């Protein structure tokens, strides 16, 4: 009877992990819709192609070598037991030994599945920031290195428990990855945008930023809702298990706080935009919800719902100022990804020290390690791509839209016969 309960707990934790992984996978759809909504219609097909292709590249590269670099899971997953080689008796013994309060025990394949969709999330952040002017194949080449090497190495230093060269083990607390996933993705995006330059027409002759309105705000809104929903898997699954009263309560807290932070972020950004610009800017409100989610991601478990709303709201305020500020610095980010995931990601990690029980020193060193590693290695890869295949489409192709030059098809064709 006792064994059957542990078998059931093993099955429940594995199932929970898989369902959360599926929710995070769906975030790829959210990013695709958000980005398709915030670019011009002439660049729709290409941004969708980037989004689906980067997801597939991330899953393949993480299986090939990323999972080995991050968790020592072996090249081609040779280190984890999948079909055929699973020792049920050993799994049961481990589950029984750990009990309901100890470390989670679940299927190795479910762990890979949950981790691999996080890699895709980090890479999705890059595609929005470099939208409307980057070459499709240069972007995908970068995705290979980012998802196969750059992200897994820093993930190994943090979640994987590997020692950082010259620094040693980190004292860094980041529940679901405000820094490890979001700020890392934004650091790669920032490097890309710096070497890529702003979109043509983004800045007037006197250097003042000009607006390039997105083509489809219903899609951008749908994308934000999809991300909001997927985030329950992103943060909720990071509890790593479900069985047991204590753990189940923690999971419920994470869901509640994740939702609260998104709401706080949206309200704050909507109000700040209304005060600053005089009108309710929907795109800022959408970015505000995502900022709230990024802000709470580093510690969604231990705070109250009211505190989570506040943390999310601070993220929502920061994101508006960050977007306007980066715009003035000529860092052209069509969807606000660097602000949402980078600036607010930094705040989210620091919020654990401000409102929770992590040390400031540990959080700051962790952030610096992640940022320096991702920014420097990404810069090297972007520069190498720029010197070889080139990363930017020609001026004429940019004007005509990358849908035609990169994909040869329009998202909304007319006058065909």
């Amino acid at each position, binding site marked *: 009877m006792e064994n059957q309960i542990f078998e059931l707990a093993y099955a429940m934790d594995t199932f929970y992990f898989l369902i959360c992984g599926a929710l995070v996978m769906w975030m790829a759809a959210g990013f695709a819709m958000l980005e398709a909504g915030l670019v011009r219609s002439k660049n729709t097909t290409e941004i969708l192609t980037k989004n689906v292709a980067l997801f597939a590249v991330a899953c393949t590269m993480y299986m090939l070598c990323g999972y080995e670099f991050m968790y020592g899971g072996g090249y081609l997953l040779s280190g984890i037991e999948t079909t055929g080689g699973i020792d049920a008796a050993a799994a049961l013994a481990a589950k029984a030994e750990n009990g309901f309060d100890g470390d989670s025990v679940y299927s190795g394949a479910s762990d890979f599945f949950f981790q691999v969709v996080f890699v895709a999330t980090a890479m999705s952040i890059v595609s929005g920031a470099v939208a409307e002017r980057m070459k499709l194949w240069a972007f995908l080449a970068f995705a290979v290195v980012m998802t196969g090497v750059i992200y897994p190495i820093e993930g190994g230093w943090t979640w994987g428990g590997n020692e950082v060269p010259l620094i040693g083990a980190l004292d860094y607390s980041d529940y679901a990855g405000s820094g490890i996933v979001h700020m890392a993705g934004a650091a790669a995006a920032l490097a890309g945008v710096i070497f890529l330059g702003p979109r043509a027409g983004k800045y007037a002759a006197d250097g003042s*930023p*000009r*607006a*390039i*309105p997105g083509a489809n705000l219903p899609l951008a809104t749908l994308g934000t809702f999809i991300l909001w929903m997927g985030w329950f898997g992103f943060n909720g699954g990071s509890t790593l298990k479900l069985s047991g009263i204590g753990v189940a309560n923690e999971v419920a807290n994470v869901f509640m706080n994740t939702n609260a932070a998104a709401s706080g972020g949206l309200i704050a950004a909507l109000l700040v*935009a209304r005060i*600053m*610009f*005089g*009108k309710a*800017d929907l*795109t*800022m409100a959408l970015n505000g919800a995502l900022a709230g989610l990024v802000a709470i991601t580093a510690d969604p478990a231990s705070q109250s719902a009211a505190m989570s709303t506040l943390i999310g709201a601070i993220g929502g305020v920061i994101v*508006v100022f960050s*977007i*306007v500020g980066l*715009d003035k610095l000529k860092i052209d980010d069509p969807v*606000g990804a660097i602000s949402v995931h980078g600036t607010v990601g930094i705040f989210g990690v620091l919020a654990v020290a401000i409102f929770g029980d992590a040390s400031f020193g540990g959080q700051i060193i962790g952030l610096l390690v992640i940022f320096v590693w991702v920014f420097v290695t990404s810069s090297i890869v972007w520069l190498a791509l720029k010197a070889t295949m080139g990363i930017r489409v020609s001026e004429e192709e940019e004007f005509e839209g990358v849908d035609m030059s990169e994909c040869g098809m329009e998202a909304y064709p007319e006058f065909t016969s």
Partner: protein
Amino acid sequence: MKLITAIIKPFKIDDVRDALAGIGIQGMTVTEVKGFGRQKGHTELYRGAEYNVDFMPKIKIEVAVADSLLDQTIEVITESANNGKVGDGKIFVVELDQVIRIRTGETGEEAI
């Protein structure tokens, strides 16, 4: 016969249509157009950055009328499209050489 082309504010189209129908005008052609006159364009904000809307959306109405109806038609369009503000639009009148109804082959005022 005259061809009247009126550029009006889009929200006035129902008023103008009803007013023209009221004096017996039996047909018109309506097009959504953009342009500028004294109203010029305006600037809007998107994510904190300004952009110019140089061409304002307008409705273009084309009506062919017999010479006897010309003054009355101009009068009702002017009245029904008037909002008292810059950007209310304009009316252009040109001479119409010929009108032919395609189905019957009728010509001239019979075809209007």
